[in-house]
């Protein structure tokens, strides 16, 4: 009862204290939901003072020790660096510098394993240490209040300081808030709630004064209303040390109960201030800034001592090391060296964890370096952190929900993550999970819950990224479409202008009168064909709808067709009667071409309809096919007509015209073969469906094939017969004229071998399908081969006979140096190749090629036979084996030949490069460009054919012809260059 008395004199003081505490509300520790109490295991390492870490032979410094953009190296391999010298500078806002942790030589900048759970490599600066640990010149700031906050922020940024607690967020960002953001509370996180880790604990016990200085610098930068340090009650020595150091200043030390994860930023904020950081927001948005004690210490070192962040205190612990404790480790020290320094206990290490046991990650490689965020290395024996048991079914016991600090429903998140139901997982606030691992810690079914959440989060992010990418792709696609349309419109406008000009010119000419009547006829013809087309369309729709009056409609269409034909004939007649001018003659041909086009498109449509009907098993298939055949016949007839017309067209029209029959024939061949192909496809389909008419279709296909072959033959002939006139755009280059017969022959050879190849292919296909006519096709292929070979022989002869003109007349080519045909320069420069050597190589190449072709063919045939046998199960296993051996042998042979060929080709290519100003690539490029332009033009013409007026067509076809000739020249130059070297395919 003496107490009241003794307290009496103190009363005024206590009133004062009460007043003071009225200004500051009494310290209240709030609580957060959940949390766990895992075994602390801190006694392993908190008993001994911090000692310096090893000085390893090599330091590995990842450019990304922090969150944000990797730093940019300032050194190169071979550079000498001193301790504290900046070796990589921050790039962008969120980044931090890197300094050499000791003196030495940069030995490499390249990928090394880094601190990442994936075990992947990233770019690191590797320093070979020299053992001298020599500092670069540095100086601290005596009184930091002399500097402006902006200067200090810059200093911190260039001292490379990033959050030392684990996340590694660059500190310069966190201490550089805008003026509009008032910092209510500055929280210093000294909780260190994870088991095992004692780095902050020891740091506070031993360097409390320096930490408090660092906190003062932070206060100067942020000017917070209050500054709180949160420390868990399991570190009494640290608490008293810090309290001592804080005496007399406005820093409040708050002791929080031991509970994991009270060191989580959001949890600490809730513990100390009762505030919650809204989902997706930063603590700064509720007026709170959190900094780790280690960071405060690093700031003090950087500002007051001028020492950038080159080392950190790291706890080395676990049963695997015999000297657990805290080490001041140079950044970049490989974990392997640190473990050796801490004396590996000779135990079997079960896992190597960087960070704490709750949120750290296992290392794949002991060569991973200690970085700015590495607060702990656990070398755990298999008994200490045992292998996780197998996952058991979730019984929804709810233990996880009890401990979740974010108050989530982990069992529901697990369920949705497991089923990839990301939407529902997000609805359950998956993204608010802090991955603290409390749920997985308590789970009696040992479900790796955190991994499920990380997986689901990764998927969510991936999906978001994919969505962004898809949206961008869509935008780009739409922009491109718009651009193309605009270009088309511009082109159209230009063409119109050109046409206008043409027409004016023509009107001035004398032929105006005679064209009138032709124009009228044309109109009539156009109308007629329009009607016909409409009828065909109607018939098609009717067909599609299975209407009754199909036959009627078709008859109508036919009638209209006849009418259209008549009209066209009239036009033709009229034109024939018209004065034999260049343009009208062209007209006829163009007209005919159009007709041919119409006819063949009608035919194609018919074929398509027939196919569709077939697919639907309609009754009128046969009818439709017959129809298609008639159409085909009429198309053929028209084509023949076209040929004739072209042949009859006055030879004087233009030199270009001469190339026309050939081109036309080519087109026919193309049509024919595409018809054949579609027929084959139809047949195949029919076969697959087991239709009755498969055989019929197949026969049809064969017929078409024959027709195509014939056309090809014709094409060859036509080409052979084509006058060896000089190409139109080359005025008089004798150099080009002479190699022409050879070129023609070459072309023929090419065509022939193509035909042969196609035949072989067809035969193979037939083989594969077990068709009856496979042998026929094979024999046909043989025939074609013979033809091709013969042609080749001819070509050889011709070449031998032809004088090597291009080489003999370099002067002549020089005169053709017009801008239109720069390509001729290529063959000219080729002339410098040693002709003898080239010829020799050519011969060898040819031989090799033949050998290869033979071998390859044999191989293919053998293979086909093997497959056939296998499929039909006609051969025994032994036979199959024998066949397989044979195939292998042939394959090897073919491969050998191919290799030799390739080697030779390479040699030749090198020669071309050596001897020509332009290399082969350039030539190829020119040819390819010309060809693509030609193809474009052709396509355009094709498009315009049905819609545009005659004049447009005319203009287009003349453009086309010009392009064709250009292409030919380019092609020829390329070919010549290639063939000089014997590189022809």
């Amino acid at each position, binding site marked *: 009862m003496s107490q009241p008395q003794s307290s009496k004199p103190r009363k005024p003081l206590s009133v004062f204290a009460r007043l003071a505490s009225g200004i500051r509300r009494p310290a209240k520790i709030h609580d957060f939901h959940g949390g766990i109490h895992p075994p602390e295991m801190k006694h392993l390492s908190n008993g001994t003072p911090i000692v310096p870490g090893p000085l390893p032979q090599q330091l590995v410094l990842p450019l990304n020790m922090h969150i944000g953009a990797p730093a940019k190296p300032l050194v190169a391999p071979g550079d000498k660096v001193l301790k504290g010298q900046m070796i990589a500078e921050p790039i962008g806002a969120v980044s931090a510098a890197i300094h050499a942790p000791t003196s030495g030589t940069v030995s490499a900048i390249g990928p090394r394993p880094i601190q990442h759970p994936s075990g992947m490599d990233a770019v690191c600066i590797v320093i070979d240490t020299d053992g001298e640990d020599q500092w670069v010149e540095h100086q601290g700031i005596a009184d930091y209040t002399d500097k402006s906050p902006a200067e200090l922020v810059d200093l911190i940024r260039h001292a490379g300081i990033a959050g030392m607690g684990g996340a590694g967020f660059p500190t310069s960002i966190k201490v550089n808030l805008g003026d509009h953001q008032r910092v209510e509370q500055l929280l210093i996180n000294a909780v260190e709630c994870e088991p095992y880790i004692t780095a902050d604990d020891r740091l506070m016990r031993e360097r409390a004064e320096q930490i408090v200085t660092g906190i003062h610098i932070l206060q100067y930068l942020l000017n917070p209303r209050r500054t709180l340090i949160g420390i868990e009650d399991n570190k009494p020595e640290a608490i008293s040390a810090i309290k001592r150091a804080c005496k007399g200043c406005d820093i409040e030390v708050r002791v929080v109960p031991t509970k994991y994860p009270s060191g989580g930023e959001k949890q600490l904020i809730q513990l100390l201030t009762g505030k919650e950081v*809204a989902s997706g927001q930063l603590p700064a948005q509720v007026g709170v800034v959190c900094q780790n004690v280690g960071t405060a210490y690093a700031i003090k070192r950087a500002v007051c001592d001028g020492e950038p962040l080159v080392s950190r205190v790291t706890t080395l612990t676990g049963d695997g090391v015999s000297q657990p404790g805290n080490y001041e480790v140079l950044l970049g020290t490989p974990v392997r060296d640190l473990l050796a320094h801490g004396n590996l206990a000779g135990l079997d290490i079960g896992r190597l964890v960087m960070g704490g046991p709750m949120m750290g990650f296992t290392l794949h490689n002991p060569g991973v370096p200690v970085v700015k965020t590495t607060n702990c290395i656990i070398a755990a024996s298999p008994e200490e952190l045992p292998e996780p048991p197998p996952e058991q079914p979730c019984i929804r016991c709810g233990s996880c*929900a009890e401990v979740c600090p974010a108050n989530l429903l982990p069992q529901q998140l697990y369920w949705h993550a497991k089923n990839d139901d990301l939407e529902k997982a997000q609805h359950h606030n998956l993204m*608010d999970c802090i991955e603290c691992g409390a749920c997985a810690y308590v789970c009696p079914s040992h479900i790796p819950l955190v991994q499920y959440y990380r997986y689901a989060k990764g998927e969510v992010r991936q999906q978001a990224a994919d969505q962004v990418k898809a949206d961008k792709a869509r935008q780009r696609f739409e922009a491109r479409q718009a651009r193309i349309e605009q270009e088309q419109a511009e082109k159209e406008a230009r063409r119109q202008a050109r046409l206008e000009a043409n027409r004016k010119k023509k009107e001035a000419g004398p032929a105006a009168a005679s064209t009138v009547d032709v124009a009228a006829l044309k109109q009539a013809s156009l109308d007629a064909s329009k009607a016909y087309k409409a009828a065909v369309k109607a018939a098609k729709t009717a067909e599609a709808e299975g209407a009754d009056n199909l036959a009627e409609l078709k008859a109508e269409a036919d009638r209209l067709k006849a009418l259209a034909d008549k009209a066209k004939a009239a036009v033709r007649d009229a034109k024939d009667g018209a004065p034999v001018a260049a343009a009208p003659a062209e007209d006829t041909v163009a007209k005919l071409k159009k007709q041919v086009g119409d006819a063949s498109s009608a035919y194609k449509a018919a074929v398509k309809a027939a196919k569709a009907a077939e697919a639907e098993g309609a009754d009128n298939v046969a009818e439709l096919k017959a129809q298609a055949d008639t159409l085909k016949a009429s198309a053929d007839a028209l084509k023949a007509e076209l040929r004739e017309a072209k042949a009859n067209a006055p030879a004087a029209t233009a030199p270009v015209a001469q190339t026309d029959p050939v081109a036309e024939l080519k087109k026919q061949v193309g049509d024919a073969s595409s018809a054949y192909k579609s027929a084959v496809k139809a047949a195949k389909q029919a076969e697959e469906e087991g239709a009755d008419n498969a055989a019929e279709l197949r026969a049809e296909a064969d017929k078409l094939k024959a027709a195509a072959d014939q056309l090809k033959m014709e094409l060859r002939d036509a080409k052979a017969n084509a006058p060896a006139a000089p190409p139109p755009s080359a005025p008089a280059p004798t150099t080009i004229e002479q190699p022409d017969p050879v070129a023609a022959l070459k072309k023929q050879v090419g065509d022939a071998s193509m035909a042969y190849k196609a035949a072989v292919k067809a035969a193979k296909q037939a083989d594969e399908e077990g068709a009856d006519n496979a042998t026929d096709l094979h024999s046909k292929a043989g025939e074609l081969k013979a033809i091709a070979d013969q042609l080749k022989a001819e070509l050889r002869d011709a070449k031998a006979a032809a004088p090597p003109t291009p080489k003999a007349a370099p002067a002549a080519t020089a005169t053709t140096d017009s801008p239109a045909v720069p390509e001729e320069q290529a063959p000219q420069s080729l002339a410098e190749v040693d002709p003898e050597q080239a010829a020799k190589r050519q011969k060898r190449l040819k031989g090799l090629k033949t050998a290869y072709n033979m071998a390859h063919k044999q191989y293919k045939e053998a293979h086909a036979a093997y497959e056939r046998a296998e499929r039909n199960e006609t051969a025994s296993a032994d036979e199959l084996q024998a066949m397989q051996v044979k195939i292998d042998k042939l394959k090897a042979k073919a491969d050998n030949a191919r290799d030799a060929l390739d080697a030779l080709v390479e040699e030749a290519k090198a020669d071309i490069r050596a001897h020509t100003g332009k290399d082969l690539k350039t030539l190829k490029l020119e040819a390819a460009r010309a060809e693509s332009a030609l193809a474009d033009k052709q396509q355009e013409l094709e498009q315009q054919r049905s819609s545009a007026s005659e004049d447009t067509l005319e203009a287009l076809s003349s453009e086309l012809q010009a392009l064709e000739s250009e292409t030919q020249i380019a092609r020829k130059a390329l070919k010549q260059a290639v063939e000089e070297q014997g590189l022809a395919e």
Partner: protein
Amino acid sequence: MSLITSTSPHATVKNNTGAFMRQVIYATLPGLAVLTWQFGWGSVINVLWAVIVALVSEALFLKARGRNIAFYLKDYSAVVTAVLLGLALPPTAPWWLTLIGVSFAIIVAKQLYGGLGMNPFNPAMVGYVLLLISFPVAMTQWLAPGEPLSFVQSWQLFTGQLPVDGLSGATPLDTFRTAHSAGAASEGELASHSILHGQFAGLGWEWVNLAFLLGGLYLISRKIITWHIPVGFLAGLGLPALLAWLIDPVRFADPLFQLFSGGAMLGAFFIATDPVSAATSRMGRLIYALLIGLLIWVIRTFGGYPDAVAFSVLLLNLSAPFIDYYTQPRTYGHKSSKRGVS
């Protein structure tokens, strides 16, 4: 040397699901002992037989599903189902009754839904209700409390050699119900039924329920279950009983009688707490259990069955997703809890 690579956390509790389930089994032992003391060996035989049936049917079905039998049997969930059903069955139950009930519970109510963790209904209660509906007579024949049968008698009942009719008696709940079904019973009439007046609740059954309460408290102390469901359950049953009894003590049974009769405590601590089929969040579980208790009181008082734990639990199992829908907890950093997801 090889290193483990795995996701954090690297440390976990030593506990596992099997251990959880074993704790539940241990916690039923007091109840089983009192049942044996009051009614003889019937319950012990029932429980053992049920366990055998459960393990065999679970193993067979796991084999049919191509699962690892040993791995799944080690979680003891089938044993728990069997023990609970064995305890709920009358000690007079013949072998075939248990066989049907347990195999149906394991195969249909659990495995057909995908096994442990996937079943929407409490398997033991599904088996119980099946038997109650199919064999109402056999399921409602209990023995008179305090007159335990010898092991031989129990065995003969189990094998069907002894007719049950001569031995069976009514339970307190049954007696109370019968007294009222004839019309409004008088106080005197109720007093004449000695079975209604034990030390503090129905004769004999008070001890059974007290034993299950003890087991349940053990479970809570071991953090196997949380308090939410038992408290909700008992409040849901006891509060309306108290209210009604205050209004009319003759017409309605007193709350202690309600809480310590029939399957009340077994239901509150062992059956409603089955986490798989219960609601998810804490608030949800409280509501879930309150409604179970309320439903039991309603059915006991106004319905056609003397006891109603099984029906109430199944009905609320059915509503658990609906309860979950409205009882999401508020996540840290969010203004309010979300609705509309299950």
